[in-house]
Each structure stands twice: as C-alpha cells, then as structure tokens.
C-alpha cells in the first residue's frame, strides 16, 4: 500500500458522528484525552478518600464537618441541624433498611471497617486509576505518535478497547463500595491470609471485586503496552533514530516493556487469590500447605517495577521540559537514557527490600540490600544531569518549568529517603511506619503528580489549541508545592517517632499522643492541598473553552508534536515529517534562532546536528 492510499484510508476512518468522535474513537489523541479525563475524575475520588483518612487521624472518632452530627445531638440526642435529623431517622431504622452512609459512618464518625477500606481504596485508586491512566494512558497515547512522527498507533482498535476495558475495570472497582460487607480492606498490598478469608476482615465481595477489577485492568494495560512497543519500534518517522527519540518517548518505551513483563505476574497472583477465596485452593493458606509469603514475593516482584512505571514517565516529562525552558540541550542524553534503562533493570531485582522484616535469610536480604543501594547511582546521574541542563542556561520560569523543578527537588527527597529503607537495619525500624508513607508520597505525589501537572500545563496548548491561564496556574503551583511539603514532610518525623501506618486511632497509643498536633497540622495541609486542586480543574475546563488561542509552537520547542497543526487534525501531519536532528538542539551555534526543530534541515556550524 502506498503512502498516499494509506493516508487516504486512515483519514477516511475519521467517520462522523458523536459516538465515533468522542466515545469509541480510534484516534490516539482522543483516547489520550479520555484517559486524562478518567484519571482526573478518579483523582478527585482518590483524593477525597485520603481526606477522610486524614480527618480520622487528626480528629479520631469525631463527626466529620458538614455531614456529621452536631455536638449538641451527640450529647443530648436532640436533633439541632438538618444532618442531625437525618442521622436520627437513619439510626432508628433496622439494620437492613439503613442507608449506605449510616453503615459507613454513623453520625458522621468513620467506623474502623470503613477506615480500613478507605486507605486501601485510596492507594488502589491513586496507583491504578490515577497515576497510571494519566502518565501512561494519557501522555503515552497522546504523545507517542505525535513525537515519533506518525499518524496513529499501530493498533487503533486495540487502543480504543484498552481505554474502555479500563473504564469497565474502574466500574467494577467502584461497585465494591456498595456490596454488603464493604469494599476491600486489606491494604493495597492485599496480604494473605487477611485477604484470603472473609472471616478475618468481614469483607467478602469487596475483596473479590478488587481482584477482578485489577485482573481486568491488567488486560487493558497489556493492550496499551503492546501497542506502545509496536508503534515505537516500527512507526518512527524517517530519520527518527532511537538516539534521536525525545526522552519522554524513551521513558514510555521502557515503561511499556516493564508493564508487559510485570503485569502478568500480578494477574497470576490475583487469579490465585481469587481461587483461594472462591474455589477452595490454598496457594496462600498455610492450613492447606500454602505459603502467605508467596504472595508477598509475587506482589512485590510486580510491585517494585510498578513504582518505576509510576515515576519513569515523570522523569521523561521533566527531561522534555527542562531543555525547552533552559534553552539548552539535555545534559548527557546518552547517560540519561542509560540511567532510565538501568533503573528499569534494577527494578526487577530489588523486590525483597519490601520483605526484610518478613523473615528472610540475611544472605538473601543482603543481596536485595546491595541491588537497592545501587539504584542511588542512576538516580544521582539523572538528578545531576538535570542540574547540568540548567547550568549556564537561559531559564524561563513558566508553569511547566516550575512544576518540573518541583519534580526534581521532590524526587531528591523521595530518593534519599529511599536509601534509609535500602539499609535493612534502619528499614526494620521504620518499616510499616509513616516514614514509608512519607517516602512513597514524595515519590508518587512529589514526583509523578508534579510531573503530571508539568505535562498538562506544557502540552495543554497542543491538546486543546488554547493556552491555560498562567497567573491561576502559578497560584495552583505554589499552593500545591507548599501544601504538599507541609502535608508529607512531617510524616518522616511521625515515622521515626514510631507512628505506624494503617492504624485507625493513633490516640489509643500513649506514646503517639504527643503527635496529635502534628497530625492536625498534616490534616489541615492535606485539605489545603486537596482544595488547591480545584484551581487546576477549573483552569483546565475554563481554558479548554475560554483560553487564549495557542499557536502551533508556543514554547519554541524542537520536537515533532510542535510541527503539527494546533490542535492536530486526525492523522496528525499533512505529510510524514523527516527528522534531521536530535531533539534538544537549543542555542546551537550558527543558527539564528535559539531552537532548531527536529525537522529543520539547517545544520549548526559545529556539526552537532547528527
């Protein structure tokens, strides 16, 4: 098939009608936007669950504001507010007739069982339905064809299915909140035997739906990763050699490989768990000769690559944005690619560091210790090479740039706190405390989420053809940055003080009572952080319709997506571009402008153009 007929055929599947354009679209850009929308909706939900958890930790067993019963009602039993009368009438019903709310939080007080479901579902939703759909689903789908210079993904139908299967998975996951017994309450790590038998938690179908939803989601991710890998290997524009690929494409390529190899392990483990629960097998049940530690090995064999699936796209986005706004090439392109590849490789041989206190032989433990320690080296290369990119630049502090700098700084803190955990002697002390909670949030919120902010602000003009409101975006950035640190930094102190995670009421512990004020401070900061995100949502939806019209290349960037029209039409490019340069030829000598598009045929005078 000639190029011309291929284009014609491709463009001809731009059928008309609402369903094919917005719902079951085969266009990678629409699918990317759909993943973004899914992620943002789930972000509101996952964040809301976290705020409920925080309320309970700061004000244990006190009624929630607004929906909780008044103090007067609690003391006297006389209804004072509208909510009081609601609780009063609900509580007088029999258990079968009571509404959902009163079962989860009678008079607005979160019950222990609901609290356990809350922290379980907060983590599950954030990891699987927010960060993965946005970083991998949205950015992966939107950027890969545009940045490697092709018209769409290799398998558009598979791509569409991948999104809709993710939606089905999400629906199954949310259904878990409404089944008798409540939603899964075994932590996002779902350790057996707690997760194998309803007797231990009182949760029955919640846990089953949790497993089934994640198995279904695994199918969706697998489809996406096969698509990404095939597209990147086969469909790069002429001249787009591997070493001319933008860093974010490298990151997504490596992530797709990780997903392809890691997810089947989780799927297998989940299937075994479902069999244990429903079919009477005993893979993880010692009473039948199984071993609960088997689950931990399988889960973390998936789980550690998963953490890199969450952070590598963020590294890619940052490596994209820093050169554009420093007007300099990325410092050490090859080392940056190698560092990501070695992080991905190392992620396969470190899973045991999640299990130092599970009772493994120390010789085994030491192997995991040294492999984990070595992660510091590629991480240091990345960090200092980002600094090298700033060095001697001409830095513009746009909102994407601010968020990327936040990513770098927060990644430094999250990375360094990781070394504490690699050192098993210290890990055994801080394991299962708030120190771990602080660490994971510095990596996944401080890292991944700030990278999501950076990416949304950076590519929004291309996606929707309009600029986002900059002053509002700056307010959002600074408030988020400050509230984030106020929320999560003190958790390090809680953790070293012995404050365990996943506890319903810290005030039950005499020696944790001294942390009451700190817990209240963290909760207030968390609410501020949550409310700040409404600014982002407003900005996104407002700018989509009312923003200033954006040109094709508002940031004067080199990579291919900026050579397409804004917003890119179906099929992306008028003609497939030819690539002449590495992606970060900024301020090249002999070029009149301080940027040099990858498609520009001009050669810099030092012959650096490859």
């Amino acid at each position: 098939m000639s190029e011309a007929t291929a284009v014609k055929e491709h463009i001809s599947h731009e059928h008309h009608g609402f369903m094919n354009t917005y719902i079951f679209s085969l266009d990678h850009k629409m699918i990317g936007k759909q993943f973004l929308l899914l992620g943002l909706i789930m972000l509101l939900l996952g964040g809301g669950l976290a705020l409920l958890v925080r309320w309970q930790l700061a004000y244990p067993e006190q009624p929630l504001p607004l929906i909780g019963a008044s103090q007067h009602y609690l003391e006297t039993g006389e209804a004072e507010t509208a909510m009081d009368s609601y609780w009063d009438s609900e509580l007088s019903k029999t258990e079968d007739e009571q509404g959902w709310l009163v079962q989860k939080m009678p008079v607005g007080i979160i019950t222990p069982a609901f609290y356990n479901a809350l922290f379980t579902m907060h983590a599950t939703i954030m990891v699987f339905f927010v960060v993965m759909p946005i970083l991998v689903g949205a950015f992966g789908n939107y950027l890969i064809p545009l940045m490697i210079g092709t018209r769409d993904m290799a398998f558009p139908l598979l791509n569409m299915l991948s999104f809709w299967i993710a939606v089905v998975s999400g629906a199954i996951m949310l259904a878990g909140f409404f089944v008798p017994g409540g939603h899964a309450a075994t932590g996002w790590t779902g350790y057996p035997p707690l997760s194998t038998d309803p007797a231990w938690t009182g949760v029955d179908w919640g846990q089953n739906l949790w497993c089934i939803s994640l198995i279904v989601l695994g199918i969706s991710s697998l489809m996406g990763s096969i698509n990404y890998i095939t597209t990147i290997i086969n469909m790069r524009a002429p001249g787009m050699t591997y070493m001319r690929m933008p860093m974010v494409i490298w990151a997504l390529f490596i992530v797709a490989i990780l997903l392809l190899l890691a997810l089947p392990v989780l799927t297998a483990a989940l299937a075994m768990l479902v069999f244990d629960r429903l079919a009477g097998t005993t893979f993880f049940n010692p009473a039948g000769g199984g071993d609960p530690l088997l689950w931990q090995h399988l889960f973390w064999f998936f789980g550690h690559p998963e953490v890199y699936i969450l952070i590598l796209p963020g590294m890619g986005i940052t490596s994209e944005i820093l050169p554009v706004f420093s007007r300099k090439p990325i410092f050490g392109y090859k080392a940056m690619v190698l560092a990501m590849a070695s992080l991905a490789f190392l992620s396969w041989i470190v899973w045991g560091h999640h299990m130092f206190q599970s009772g493994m032989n120390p010789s085994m433990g030491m192997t995991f210790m040294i492999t984990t320690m070595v992660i510091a080296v590629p991480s240091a290369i990345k960090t200092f090479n980002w600094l090298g990119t700033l060095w001697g630049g001409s830095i513009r502090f746009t909102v994407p740039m601010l968020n990327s700098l936040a990513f770098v700084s927060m990644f430094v803190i999250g990375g360094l706190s990781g070394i504490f955990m690699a050192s098993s002697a210290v890990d055994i002390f801080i394991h299962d405390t708030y120190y771990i909670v602080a660490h994971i949030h510095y990596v996944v919120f401080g890292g991944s989420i700030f990278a999501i902010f950076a990416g949304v602000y950076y590519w929004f003009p291309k996606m929707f053809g309009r600029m986002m409101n900059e002053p509002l975006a700056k307010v959002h950035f600074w408030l988020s940055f400050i509230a984030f640190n106020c929320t999560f930094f003190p958790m390090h102190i809680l953790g070293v003080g012995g404050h365990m995670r996943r506890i319903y009421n810290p005030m039950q512990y005499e020696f944790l009572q001294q942390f009451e004020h700190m817990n209240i401070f963290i909760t207030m900061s968390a609410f501020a952080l949550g409310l700040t995100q409404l600014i982002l949502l407003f900005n996104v939806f407002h700018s989509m319709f009312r923003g200033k019209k954006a040109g094709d290349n508002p940031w004067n960037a080199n990579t291919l997506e900026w050579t397409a029209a804004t917003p890119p039409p179906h099929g992306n490019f008028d003609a497939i571009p030819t690539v002449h340069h590495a992606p970060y030829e900024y301020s090249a000598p002999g070029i009149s402008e301080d940027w040099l598009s990858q498609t520009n045929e001009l050669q810099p005078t030092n012959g650096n153009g490859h």
Partner: protein
Amino acid sequence: MDKDFVLWPEQASTLASRVDNIYLFLVAVSVFFTALIFFLIYLFAVKYRRKSEDDVPKEISGLLQLELVWSIIPLILVLIVFVWGATIYFDSYTPPADAMEIYVVGKQWMWHIQHPTGEREINELHVPTGQAVKLTMTSEDVIHSFYVPAFRTKKDVVPGRYSTMWFKAIKPGEYHLFCAEYCGTKHSEMIGKVVVMTPADYQNWLAGGPASEPMEVTGEKKFQQLACHTCHTDKPNARGPSLVGVFGESVLLKGGRSVIADEDYIRESILNPKAKITAGYQPVMPTFKGQISEVGLLQITAYLKSLAKEGNQ
C-alpha cells in the same frame, strides 16, 4: 508543641544505638545532598534566569568527567552504608548462643506469650536486663508483626511457620509493644507492653506468680494425651523414630535428603506428617491438625528440646 515532645523513642536495647547511629549518618548525608541540590537549583535559577528575549546560552550537551564524578561518589557512599548496615542486619538476625527463649503466638487482636518456665502472659512480656532474649513466634490467623520501637526491632509473625527475633534490653522500664503489620478491623487496638526488670526483680516476678508448670512438662503431658508415645517408643522396632536427642540434629529422610530438626520441622511433622518421612519408617502417622493449638505445638516442641538435652548428655 508539647513540652515533653521526643523526636524518637528512647534507646532501650543494645541494638538501638547502633541503628540510630547509621540512621543519623544517613540523615547527615541526605541533608548534605538535599542542601547542595536545592542550593544549585536556587543558584542557577537566579544566575541563569532569562535576561532578554535574544539571550542565547552556550550549547553544553554533556561533560563526561562531571558525569563520572556524580556517579562514582554516590556509589562509594552507598557501599559504605551497605557494609555498615549489613553488619548490623546480620547481628540483629543471629541470636547469641546463651539467649533465653520465649514463645509468642499472635492472633486477632492479642499477643499470647509463653515462658519456658510455664508463665503465660497476654499482651505483656516480662524480661530481665542484660540477658539476650530470643522470641520464637507464630500466628494463629493472619500476619502480625512484633514491634517494640524502643528496641528498634520488628519481625513479622507469620501463620504456618516460626519466625524469630532477639534483643537484649539495657534499661528497666515499660516499653510499648505493637502489631506493625495491618491485621484487620481492630489492628490498631493490638497493643501491649514489654516490662524490662533488673535480673533480681525478674526472679521475684517469676517466683511471685501463681505456681506454673514448665513448658516442657506441659508438653510431655500433651505428648501422652495425644498418644504420641505409643509409636515414638524409643524401642528399636517402634513404628515411629525415637525423638530423644533429635532436636537440632540432622535427620536422614527417605530418599536420601536430610533436614535439620528445628521448630518448623517438628511443627510440620505433627500437622503434615507425610511431608518428610524419616528414612527406614513407613508413612503411617496421621495428622494432628485441629487437635492441637499453636501454643500446644510450642509446648511439645519444648518437651522435645528437653529430650534433646538429655540425649546429648
């Protein structure tokens, strides 16, 4: 902030100060690098801020020497931390030979503790100072984790197997004992305490309680009750192998493999007797699953250990 706010729990075991030292070293390293990187970001932000629209920086695409420097220095640092941390890790794993043994069974949501001398405690553990204590632990239901912040030690308590941990307390006092592994609805109420006493006070405490039967004696009774002795008779042509002197020794299995007769082996041989058959015997022993509790298993194990001592004499 509260007046008596403490940054971290007091150091009450020999391990605590060693863990804190490496922790503080890591804090120092982290603060140094965080400060360095934040300073550089700030410096570059101020110094290289875009001055005018036609401001064109020099194109620097990398510098191998620099990249080597910031690869090798972190590598050396983490190797130091590795060797240091691994030493403590090994020591914290291996109990001294003279350690006193205590048995722990976790269940939703309490700790059951059994001293070899027969004392039983719920959610409390009394130990003397200056004496290494080895805990052999298991769980009746889900995974729990035995965590004493003041000792800087923690070990998961896993159903179906024994895990061990040890500590040597250095200061008399009461210390918090928690379950650190999330274990179900009332996980946060699984609270206990470790009472550390001077050796003299400890002896008084032992003597002061209600008269109790040593674990090995209870174990021997259980051994009789369950009629174990009808097959394990110590006679040459008995149906079961003699158990005298077996504990801690290597046992030759059918098929030529051999196995060390430790707590896990004994537990398995009682609950799942056909898993490992001693060479020269038939797989005729029935399972005792459901007839004996975790504590009962530990008592029989204690009895077999006492037989081992006799056997070695």
